[in-house]
């Protein structure tokens, strides 16, 4: 089955961020296709490379990056939600005149149309949120 995953909650704040990651991993292991993972609301914070959790804790953002590298996942961060919360790639930081970017490898920033397209193109859209 072809899935699009919507992640609406931030890492470490909310179980949904972990569950979305675990669901995606399990779906891939079962041979399903992940059309896209879309990060919205505080979910955009799953795509920063600048988090440093305690040494004995899990690395949520890094796990997404590794999963994307292994399976060629399309990890898309909503641009409007990202701008509100300070998630930037190099191009966007330059365009906004900011002095830094923080997007993690394997993620890209794009518009909400990517979420709607995911709903249209996939057999199931699964929402992880509050």
């Amino acid at each position: 089955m072809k899935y699009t995953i919507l992640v609406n909650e931030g890492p470490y704040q909310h179980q949904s961020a972990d569950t979305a990651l675990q669901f995606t991993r399990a779906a891939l292991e079962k041979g399903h296709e992940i059309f896209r993972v879309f990060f919205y609301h505080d979910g955009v914070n799953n795509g920063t490379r600048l988090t440093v959790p305690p040494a004995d804790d899990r690395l949520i953002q890094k796990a997404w990056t590794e999963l994307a590298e292994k399976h060629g996942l399309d990890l898309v961060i909503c641009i409007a939600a990202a701008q509100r919360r300070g998630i930037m790639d190099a191009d966007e930081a330059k365009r906004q005149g900011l002095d830094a970017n923080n997007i993690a490898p394997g993620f890209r920033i794009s518009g909400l149309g990517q979420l709607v397209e995911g709903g249209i193109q996939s057999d199931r859209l699964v929402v992880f949120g509050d």
Partner: protein
Amino acid sequence: MSTKNFLFVNRKAPYGTIYALESLEVVLISAAFEQNVSLAFIDDGVYQITKGQNSKGIGMKNFSPTYRALGDYDITKLYVSSESLAERGLTVDDLMELTYEDADDDYAEKPSIILANREEMAAMMAEQEVILSF
């Protein structure tokens, strides 16, 4: 691109969290994809479309006028949970008058709000293909 039945389920109050505002942003984008879009207002989500909202005191933008534009985007089915209204002491008279112009009926102005009880809401949801819950 194919057309699907999209439902956006709104369950949260308009202020306090950003869910309602960002849900509305996806709703407006989905209209541009010419999908068959419906909205449901359940639980505290019914407060999103109450009339007379004034958010000045909390320093937030009052975005409720945007719901009035939904009809112009051909989003004409706004299902409101009758139980959720009743549980909060609200009636349909407390809601904004949200309407659309029916192109198939000489552009007559018609109400977009559809009161639905839990059974009707469940039946409507069963007909959807993509459900986003915020």
